[in-house]
């Protein structure tokens, strides 16, 4: 029958299962051991039987002749046969159930044989009792059963047929076999109890062993799973435990480490003597320098590299044995992190100090030109020039110079901020390097002339007609480098050399800016590229500046995937070199240097150029009075006629009613901003060029302006040269007088009427009241937009959505609903446009003239409320 798992087996715990396995192993060992003992006993009994036969009855006689006594043969062969199978099974199958049973039967058969051959001597009966007791060694009471049965059967059968052979008497009671069997069973009873007790003891031992093994396994698992290296050491300093983390940390395997001296493995040589002394002290006094503490020390790996560790040592007592347990944590990464943090902190503190210095410097730099501007402005206002035109001109020039300086300073700060904020991008486009360089040189020519410096540039080799780069940033870098060269050169020259290096995989445009200036000490050559750093403070005092130019230039060059470097010798001059990729040069025409007009210039003695514009009529729209005056003055001086407006609505009206050759539109204005005004103009077919003015210089602003309908884009603050250059370019592309006026008159916009019967005074009153409320709401929306109170806008839009249709103006409900949805979607761009739509609807509202009596009643009602307003667009009732 195959072994079947008892369902109860499934309910035992893993501990019990392990204990059962241990018990089975013990039992198997017991069976095997006892089998071997019985095998020996069988052989001994066999040998003893043969010896006894040989001694007692060796020969049988017939007169004077003799032969081997049959008892000897019986002992040899019969005893051998009786012992054969038990010995064989005990040898080849020890521990088997069959082996035990065969041994049990054979042993009692030996007993029976002994009793028989001794003629039932009572003494030989003790062999039975001894055999049974010996069988109890198996702890298996079942083996006593066949032995007892054989003994009982033997006594029964012999007692029945030949009692002399077992009892030694001729006749005996028929129950005497039972008495003999009873004594055997009596012994069996005690042997059974002994077996059961022994089995229970074995069970308990197995359970305790299983518990101990589990505890050891658990302990081992905990130690192996520990994130720290766990090292155990005895009082002699030898390693007794080494977990897997210790292997990883120190590089020694467990086999190598256990038994070795800990000092030789992981303690640096300079600390070993102290370790040994501390160990001896602990053995003597029970006190250790680091026992029970966490310390940070240096340990040694297998490859002899030292590394920092955090060490905790405890004393462990197992029974009467003392030892140490060390928990070692590799803190190399923590130290590195701490060091990095410390360095970052120092860098942050240094940056903070630099920024503080910068701010202090900036404060001074800003105040200086401001003071100049304010001071000289004040002088002009107070008439300090005394009517002297030349002096007045000087005052103005000073103001202009200071303004330019201040503008440059602010531009630099803004640029650096944008760069650090990641908001400055490079926009690659095809541009002419020769033109860029010429433009920059021409701009700086004035300064060079003033300082009587020789400013010249040359091209070495063929020059590509165009390269792919960011012209604005490239120009900015050149302005900075050449400007610095001019600034820091007291006398001598500034020489620019440009060439194309086609040897690298990607061609480079290399420009060297060499000057005969003050030079830069070698130790400062790298520092000057850091923000807020100059060569030294004396430079700042003598030459001014913020120390941002080179930092910005380096960032810009790196953003263009180029590099910038400097070679300098104090007192002899510096050479700054930039190299930027040119982009693909396939299909690009190369020009020889002599074919470029104005490519070489000794600029001493040349005068600056004056830009003039064609006699165009320009509409200047800007809400800033100062800007209107300044820009207007620049344009007038350039030969244009200028009219102004302070908001988009006025500009819209003027542009649609008057002929202008160009509109210069500020994009951020109250009432109606430039985006809406431009869009509305374009919707009405306005064709004249519109140049946007915006203070924003972010990447998307130009696209936004162009998307609104602008022709060109200028960023504030306005540079007069840039302004005029842009105007010149636009007017060249759109000559004055060529833009046709739109065919749609401004007042031809469809009027908006209420669908309610306004002939009825009651309905008229409702319409008038709504119109007043609507226009107040629109004003409120505009005001809320100015302070970015979108919740207020949403409230007003929601109210209009509900009332517009009721008052007969479904367009208003529709527009207010769109505005509300745009606010919910946080689409702020659409919000402004939708508010402009509401404003336009407000402009187009016309309340049809009812009968006079009705009109008077409506006016009276509106006047009572003080809400009736009139504009150019609204028809009076």
């Amino acid at each position, binding site marked *: 029958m195959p*072994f079947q798992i*008892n369902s*109860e*087996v499934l*309910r*035992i715990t893993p501990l*019990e299962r392990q*204990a*059962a*396995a241990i*018990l*089975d*192993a013990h*039992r*198997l060992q017991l*069976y095997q051991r006892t089998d071997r003992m019985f095998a020996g006993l069988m052989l001994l009994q066999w040998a003893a039987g043969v010896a006894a036969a040989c001694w*007692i*009855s*060796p*020969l*049988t*006689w*017939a*007169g*004077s*002749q*003799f032969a081997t*006594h*049959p*008892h000897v043969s*019986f002992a040899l*062969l*019969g005893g051998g*046969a*009786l012992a*054969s*199978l038990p010995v064989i099974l005990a040898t080849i*199958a020890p*521990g*088997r*159930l*069959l082996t035990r049973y*065969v041994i049990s*039967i*054979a042993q009692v*058969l030996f007993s*029976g*044989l002994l009793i*028989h*051959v001794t*003629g*039932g*001597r009572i003494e030989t009966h003790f062999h039975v009792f001894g055999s049974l007791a010996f069988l109890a060694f198996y702890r298996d009471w079942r083996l006593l059963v066949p032995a007892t049965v054989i003994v009982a059967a033997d006594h029964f059968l012999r007692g029945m047929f030949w009692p*002399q*052979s077992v009892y*030694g*008497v*001729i006749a005996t009671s028929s129950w005497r076999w039972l008495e003999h069997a009873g004594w055997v069973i009596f012994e069996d009873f005690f042997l059974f109890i002994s077996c059961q007790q022994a*089995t229970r003891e074995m*069970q308990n031992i197995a359970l305790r062993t299983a518990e101990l093994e589990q505890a050891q396994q658990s302990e081992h698992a905990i130690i192996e799973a520990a994130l720290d290296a766990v090292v155990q050491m005895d009082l002699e300093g030898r390693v007794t435990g080494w977990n897997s983390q210790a292997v990883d940390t120190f590089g020694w395997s467990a086999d190598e480490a256990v038994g070795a001296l800990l000092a030789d493995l992981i303690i640096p040589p300079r600390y070993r003597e102290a370790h040994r002394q501390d160990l001896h002290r602990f053995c003597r006094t029970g006190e250790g320098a680091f026992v029970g503490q966490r310390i940070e020390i240096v340990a040694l790996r297998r490859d002899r590299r030292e590394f920092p560790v955090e060490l905790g040592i405890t004393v462990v007592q197992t029974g009467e044995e003392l030892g140490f347990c060390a928990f070692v944590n590799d803190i190399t990464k923590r130290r590195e992190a701490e060091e990095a943090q410390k360095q970052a902190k120092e860098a942050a503190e240094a940056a903070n100090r630099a920024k503080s210095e910068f701010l202090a410097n900036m404060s001074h730099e800003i105040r200086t030109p401001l003071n100049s501007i304010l001071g000289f402005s004040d002088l002009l206002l107070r008439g300090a020039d005394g009517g002297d035109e030349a002096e007045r001109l000087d005052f103005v020039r000073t103001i202009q110079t200071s303004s330019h300086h201040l503008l440059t300073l602010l531009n630099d700060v803004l640029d650096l901020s944008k760069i650090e904020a990641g908001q400055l991008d490079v926009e690659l486009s095809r541009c002419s390097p020769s033109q860029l360089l010429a433009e920059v040189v021409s701009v700086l020519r004035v300064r060079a002339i003033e300082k009587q410096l020789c400013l010249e540039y040359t091209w070495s080799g063929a020059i590509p007609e165009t390269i792919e780069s960011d012209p604005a940033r490239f120009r900015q870098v050149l302005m900075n480098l050449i400007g610095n060269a001019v600034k820091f050169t007291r006398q001598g020259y500034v020489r620019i050399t440009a060439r194309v290096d086609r040897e690298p995989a990607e061609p480079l445009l290399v420009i060297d800016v060499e000057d005969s200036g003050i030079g830069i000490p070698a130790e400062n050559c790298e520092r000057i590229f850091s923000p807020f750093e100059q060569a030294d403070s004396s430079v700042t005092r003598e030459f001014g500046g913020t120390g941002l130019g080179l930092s910005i230039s380096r960032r810009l060059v790196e953003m263009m995937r180029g590099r910038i470097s400097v070679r300098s010798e104090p007192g002899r001059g510096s050479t700054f070199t930039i190299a930027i990729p040119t982009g693909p040069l396939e299909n690009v025409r190369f020009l020889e240097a002599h074919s470029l007009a104005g490519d070489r210039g000794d600029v001493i003695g040349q005068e600056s150029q004056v830009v003039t514009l064609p006699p165009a009529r320009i509409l200047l729209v800007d809400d800033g009075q100062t800007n209107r005056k300044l820009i207007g003055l620049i344009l007038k001086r350039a030969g244009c006629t200028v009219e102004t407006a302070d908001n988009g609505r006025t500009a819209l009206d003027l542009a649609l009613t008057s002929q202008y050759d160009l509109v210069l539109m500020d994009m951020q204005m109250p009432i109606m901003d430039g985006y809406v005004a431009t869009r509305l103009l374009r919707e009405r077919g306005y064709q004249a060029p519109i140049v946007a003015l915006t203070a924003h210089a972010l990447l998307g602003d130009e696209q936004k302006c162009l998307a609104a309908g602008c022709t060109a884009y200028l960023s504030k603050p306005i540079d007069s040269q840039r302004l005029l250059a842009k105007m010149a370019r636009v007017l060249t592309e759109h000559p004055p007088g060529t833009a046709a006026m739109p065919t749609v008159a401004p007042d031809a916009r469809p009027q908006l009427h209420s669908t309610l019967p306004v002939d009825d005074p009651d309905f008229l009153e409702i319409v008038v009241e709504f119109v007043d409320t609507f226009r107040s709401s629109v004003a409120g929306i505009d005001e809320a937009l100015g302070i970015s109170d979108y919740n207020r806008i949403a409230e007003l839009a929601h109210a209009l959505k509900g009332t517009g249709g009721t008052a007969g103006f479904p367009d208003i409900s529709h527009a207010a609903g769109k505005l509300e949805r745009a606010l919910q979607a946080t689409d702020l761009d659409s919000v402004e446009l939708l508010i402009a739509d509401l404003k336009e609807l407000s402009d187009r509202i016309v309340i049809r003239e009812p009968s006079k009596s009705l009109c008077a009643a409506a006016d009276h009602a509106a006047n009572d409320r003080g809400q009736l307003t009139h504009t150019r667009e609204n028809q009076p009732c």
Partner: protein
Amino acid sequence: MTAMTRLIQRDIPGACGPRPTRRILVASAALCAVWLTVVIGGLCRVESYGQTAGQTGTVKDHWPSGTQLTLNHEVPTLVLFLHPQCPCSRATLGELEVLLTHCQNRVVANVVFLQPDGFSNDWVETDLWHAAARIPGATAIRDEGGREMNRFGARVSGETLLYQVSGELLFHGGITASRGHHGDNKGRAMIEALLTGHTAPTAETPVYGCSLCRPSSSASGEAQCHSK
């Protein structure tokens, strides 16, 4: 009893090795059966040998003349013939001792030891001789050449003859239950009955011991008892 206890009480074959195959089980059963058969057969053979009596001859039913043994005229005379080397006769001597103890002064015993021609006295005077000599009321006698055995007709060691004072044979046979077997037996019981005046149910019992005569090598088959 816990589930674990019940688990342990069962024999889990895996704990003691792989489960034997059916062929091995059949072979093991057959082997055990053969072994038991051989063992039991051997035990039976031993038993059978022990129950096999010696072949006695025709004894004189009257005290023979010419014997040098003396017939006692006051009490019966018991003559016991022994082979001095026969191991089974130790039991016979033991029973003789019990008999003489029970029937003290009621019988005289002569223990006649075979001494074939050419055999020395040392060959005869074994532990049996000395044991016989120590039995009170028994006289150990050497039978040189086996002449007395021939006169009385004894053929098997342990053969016991009891004669009345008149020389009439009262008992002939063995006084052990089987070869070398001490303890109650019919022969001793009969002699004791005769010596105490009771009648015995039978006057002859089997004799378990070695042959006193050499196997015959002549055509007549007659055993020769008195020479080498």
